[in-house]
């Protein structure tokens, strides 16, 4: 969580500095401001890997959708957006448990390093409304995230990755 917020703060301060460019690109975390020269890699969050099922297929949508999971993937150090990165997502939703295979899906980041995957509405499980995201199996070090929803009524959630070479 801390890292997630820090990343957002980084972005806000960066986008303030280059507000004009932000207006044009219009998407979060895509800029490579000078302040991101030493961008630290995102650490794995506690419990992030719980109920992980490796190898979730890339899908257009998990189940019936209705909830938007999004985020950015950038490279540690210079903060360059990483495209074609496979992010796996799962959660306890209106359609199943975290451990159900059909609750898992994956998506690829675009050229701008962002990803979006529609999935069923996340519902509180084990006391908190939260999602799980994984970057695993590639040229970068594995990272598991477990972002919390500010409210379980939210219809979207974002989580950002900063990856370092494995």
């Amino acid at each position: 969580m801390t890292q997630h917020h820090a990343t957002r703060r980084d972005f806000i301060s960066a986008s303030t500095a280059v507000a004009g460019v932000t207006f044009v690109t219009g998407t979060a975390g895509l800029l490579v401001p000078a302040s991101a020269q030493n961008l630290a890699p995102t650490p794995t969050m506690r419990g992030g890997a719980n109920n992980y099922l490796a190898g979730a297929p890339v899908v257009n949508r998990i189940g019936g959708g209705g909830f938007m999971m999004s985020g950015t993937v950038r490279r540690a150090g210079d903060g360059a957006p990483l495209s074609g990165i496979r992010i796996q997502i799962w959660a306890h939703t209106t359609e199943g448990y975290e451990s159900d295979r059909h609750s898992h899906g994956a998506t690829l980041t675009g050229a701008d390093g962002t990803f979006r995957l529609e999935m069923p509405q996340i519902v509180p499980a084990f006391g908190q409304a939260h999602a799980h995201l994984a970057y695993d199996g590639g040229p970068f070090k594995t990272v598991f995230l477990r972002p919390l929803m500010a409210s379980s009524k939210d219809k979207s959630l974002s989580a950002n990755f900063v990856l370092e070479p494995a």
Partner: protein
Amino acid sequence: MSIRAVLIWAGLATAIAVPIAIAATSPLLAYRGPVYIAAGFAGIIAMALVLVQPLLAGGSLPGLPTRPGRRVHRWIGALLVAMVVAHVAGLWLTSAPDVIDALLFDSPTPFSAWGVVAMWAIFATALLAALRGRLRIAPRVWRLGHTTLAVVIVIGSVVHALLIEGAMGNVSKVVLCVLVVAAMAKVLVVLRPWALLTRQRQGVRSD
């Protein structure tokens, strides 16, 4: 039965029944299987039993003065252990990694540790109660030790419950938690378990 007795029993029944009834109508249940639902209700029932226990120990319930009340207290204590075991076992079957994290105090959820501490305090209480005769624990020592564990159980359970977003309704959960703390406070005032400590100090002060 006096009016006062009826009111006390009706109040206790309401304090227990309302949170359970509200939880039974929670929309979250639609997205949970029977085992997860049962695990959640075992936790809610356990909290209700934690409310009953100090009332029985202190003889606060009409028709159940201290001596027969304590006998019921022991049975409720055994039931409480069973409910906690059902709660943890049901959650384990639902998502083992989350329960393992909690038991190892390595969970990302802040409420887990409070619940696990309360669980161990409940188990320790039951073990001490079972061995009380064999260990020949003096009544004053027993009372101090037992109530100390009871305070840990109450604080741990209440914080655990309050921090969770689950099937219980928020208002009924807070009310139940306040009543649990109030019942514990009342029995502390009545039984004065710290008498052992103050007596020693009084001896030193010789007053």
